[in-house]
């Protein structure tokens, strides 16, 4: 099941989102239902669990574990469906905050920092992948285990301090790392020259203030694309 969890989003689509993936990951366990793969219990459960679901892929294990336990314990379908609906959003919210909005940017900054202090390609890539995936694979394993052991009472487990307070601490650490890592990396990319470094940091700060003012309206990568397109055109034509 753990291995199937890694492929949870293989059939992500706009109708069932992660739903079919949840069914896919639970399928091996559901074979233990009375009657096996041809039994009514198995078919009912598989159909139910493959419907629409939307959550964070790393914490989906909590749902897969808890729902598996509920199905194998023979909880009535209506209650399972209600639980399934209520579980998706909170898991998604906790996972998005912890992983996409803290752990990933933090590890990214650490990688950029290793580059900044002169790290070799192997060192940068190795540090980033080991650090990030230590957190990633632990989180997935924890989720599946806690889901299987708690079943329908899994809510309390989401109060785990790592999930609740983690984003704040990781955020503080990320800000600290950003202060060292980004200027160092910029220097290394831009090449030697103090005046140049000063000018770069000055212009970038103005840019950041502008972007911060726009906040949710701005999509940084689109702006980057526009500016670079103009720059390349200008340089080619003159």
């Amino acid at each position, binding site marked *: 099941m753990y291995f199937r969890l890694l492929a949870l*989003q293989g059939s992500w689509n706009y109708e069932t989102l992660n739903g*079919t993936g949840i069914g896919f990951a639970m399928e091996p366990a559901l074979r233990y239902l009375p009657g096996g793969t041809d039994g009514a219990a198995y078919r009912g459960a598989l159909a139910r669990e493959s419907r629409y679901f939307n959550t964070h892929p790393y914490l989906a294990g909590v749902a897969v574990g808890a729902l598996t336990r509920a199905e194998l314990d023979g909880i009535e379908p209506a209650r399972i469906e209600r639980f399934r609906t209520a579980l998706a959003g909170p898991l998604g919210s906790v996972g998005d905050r912890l992983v996409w909005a803290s752990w990933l940017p933090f590890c*990214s900054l650490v990688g950029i920092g290793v580059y900044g202090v002169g790290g070799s390609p192997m060192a940068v890539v190795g540090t980033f992948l080991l650090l990030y995936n230590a957190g990633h694979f632990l989180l997935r394993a924890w989720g599946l285990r806690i889901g299987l052991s708690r079943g329908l009472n899994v809510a309390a487990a989401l109060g785990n301090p790592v999930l609740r307070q983690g984003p704040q601490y990781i955020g503080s650490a990320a800000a600290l790392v950003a*202060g060292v890592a980004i200027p160092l990396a910029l220097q290394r990319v831009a090449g030697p020259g103090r005046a140049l470094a000063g000018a770069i940091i000055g212009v970038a700060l103005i840019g950041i203030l502008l972007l911060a003012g726009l906040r949710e309206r701005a999509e940084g990568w689109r702006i980057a694309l526009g500016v670079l397109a103009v720059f390349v055109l200008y340089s080619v034509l003159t």
Partner: protein
Amino acid sequence: MILLEALPIALLGALLGLDVVSFPQAMVSRPIVAATLAGSLVGNPPAGLLIGVVLEMIALDTLPFGASRYPEWGSAAVVGGALFAAQPAGMPGALPASTLAALLTASISGWSMVVLRRTIAGRLERSRDRIEDGSRDALLSLHLSGMSLDLLRGGLVTLIAMMIFGSLVRAIVAVWGSDSAPSHAVVVVVAATVAGGALWKVFHSVRWVLWFFFGGLLGWAALLVTR
């Protein structure tokens, strides 16, 4: 770029494109990794790493949720890394041109994900009755074909992008007009700005966040003085 040269790169783009969403999401597809691997494939890992760091900073802006289209960085960084690593060292236009090509690829690749997700929804529509009946075969076949299509998607995007941008970037570098020093500087400013804006968006509600950031800057200043 001839087809034979592009094939191994396309294979890497396929594998890393798959990592973004489908399997196993171990972030091997982050630009800092993907571009470095592509650079190694071309025989120039440090160049891959350099553009990887630039793209990584820009990618900090993308939070991968929402039904909206978002750029797909895995295949894009492979393209960027391979292009930049293939240019002769010290050419002034190489970094901006390769970065631009990678950003365009990210955008196209993001669009290809939307197409893929619609295709899977279409397949789902056709096998819905069987899945609603609890058919194991129907579910497994939907899921596995979804993953195979994603693999194919990443490979095709990378291949097409390499065929188009390979010669384009070389041509741009050949006629590049402006000086060499500002060419890196402009890219660096853009990357730093996007990274700063993105980090502010994500972390501005963290308590004392600016003090932590200034603490980091102090550490950087200390390094500058002591070196």
